[in-house]
């Protein structure tokens, strides 16, 4: 039996002592401690093109979660089994500065899983056709190193990383490259740059499962810790799914999955609108 003092939902003692009970009181009223509804995302902001040394960059803030993506384009020999394709190499870094749960040293499991997730999204969604990155078949192609670094970890890292990657790719400008017939060297024309051909716009929507039944959207760090399962859906603009990432956790019925899909569709519209607005505001020419 709990002390009467603990009945006040704003009492911080309950939050530290019994965090799950504290959360349950809010979830019963269909809201969360930060005032959001169960299906509401945190304020999303995006800043495109902030890193001048990178060929493309974007900074995404999802509430407190801050993620920056920088893309550098370099030359490489195309793979022998696919001589007309380039490479896209993503890497997600979760340094100790973003959260005390990470130590310095080789990438931890969460960073590796996030990197693999982003690689899968790029591969499945066909966001860029790798053939577009080929300069001269069998001889030269572009490799895009996408470095995604988390600056502040407050949950829902996968959504933020996917958005940052998409925005940064839209910002990338590659110079024109011609192969000189006589010297067989590549000549780069930095004055003539063109944007990448982004074919689809995959947007990730993450959910956390509470007590095996309740689904909440965009979990914070604390909510992720208390959750009994997580689910991430990556959808493109046609409603096609590129990824349904559910790494274990409580079971979900088909009906609950359907609800997640519809929320993912609305989220895609929100994100696309935000990104289009930002890109439009950037183009003075």
């Amino acid at each position, binding site marked *: 039996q709990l002390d009467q003092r603990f009945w006040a939902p704003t009492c911080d003692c309950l939050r530290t002592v019994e965090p799950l009970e504290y959360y349950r009181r809010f979830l019963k009223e269909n809201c969360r401690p930060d005032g959001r509804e169960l299906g509401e995302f945190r304020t999303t902001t995006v800043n495109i093109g902030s890193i001048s040394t990178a060929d493309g960059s974007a900074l995404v803030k999802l509430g407190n979660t801050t993620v920056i993506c920088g893309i550098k384009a370099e030359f490489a020999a195309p793979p022998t089994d696919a001589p007309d394709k380039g490479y896209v190499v993503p890497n997600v870094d979760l340094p100790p500065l973003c959260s005390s749960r990470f130590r310095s040293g080789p990438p931890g*499991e969460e960073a*590796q*899983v996030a990197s*693999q*997730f982003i690689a*899968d999204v790029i*591969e*499945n*969604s*066909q966001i860029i056709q790798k053939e577009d990155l080929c300069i001269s078949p069998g001889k030269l192609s572009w490799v895009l190193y996408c470095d995604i670094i988390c600056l502040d970890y407050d949950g829902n890292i996968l959504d933020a990383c996917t958005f940052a990657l998409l925005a940064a790719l839209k910002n990338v400008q590659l110079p024109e490259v011609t192969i000189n017939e006589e010297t067989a060297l590549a000549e780069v024309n930095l004055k003539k740059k063109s944007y990448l051909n982004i074919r689809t716009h995959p947007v990730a929507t993450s959910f956390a499962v509470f007590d095996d039944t309740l689904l909440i959207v965009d979990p914070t760090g604390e909510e992720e810790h208390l959750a*009994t*399962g997580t689910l991430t859906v990556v959808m*493109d603009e046609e*409603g*096609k*799914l*590129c*990824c*349904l*990432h*559910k*790494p*274990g*956790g*409580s*079971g*979900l*019925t*088909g009906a609950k*999955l*359907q609800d997640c*899909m519809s929320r993912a569709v609305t989220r895609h519209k929100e994100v696309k609108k935000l990104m289009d607005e930002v890109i439009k505001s950037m183009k003075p020419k």
Partner: protein
Amino acid sequence: MEGVMQTDAKMRTESGAESSPRAPGCSLRHFACEQNLLSRPDGSASFLQGVAEKSRERLIRNTCEAVVLGALHPRTSITVVLQVVSDAGSLLACCLNAACMALVDAGVPMRALFCGVTCALDSEGTLVLDPTAKQEKEARAILTFALDSVERKLLMSTTKGLYSDAELQQCLAAAQAASQHVFRFYRESLQRRYSKS
């Protein structure tokens, strides 16, 4: 058909079981299972089904964590070691099945059993359950699900490729139907084992 790993012949309990080659209405390939074939570990199983690594490990681990009643064994570490003997497609699903059988063999308390099922969608949209390696390569999308035995809820899902929401529901329904066969096989396999000893 016996996948044998002989470490100590004396201790090994023979309890093989094989499913019927072509169960009507089921398009899963033939599978076989052998339990308690290693003497050192507490429980072991080899699961043979039809003839990326940290990510897969995490998926299997999280699925096991969701069903194992960890609260009954505090300060205990349960290590699940999976060794791939041969890969003929649907590897992750096979790993999940082996993990479940091994946990049962070890006597770890669980709230439900789980099984893995893989679906492949080809370019026309035809659904193929339990694809071979060749079918996986040619598929447009591959969806692997882990389902629990109590309510056939979705415990884990990992997908590759592009597919629509309707196709997802179709695959999930097919996987839920197929999981019945796998759970029936678990039951038969365990019955046979315990009826001998």
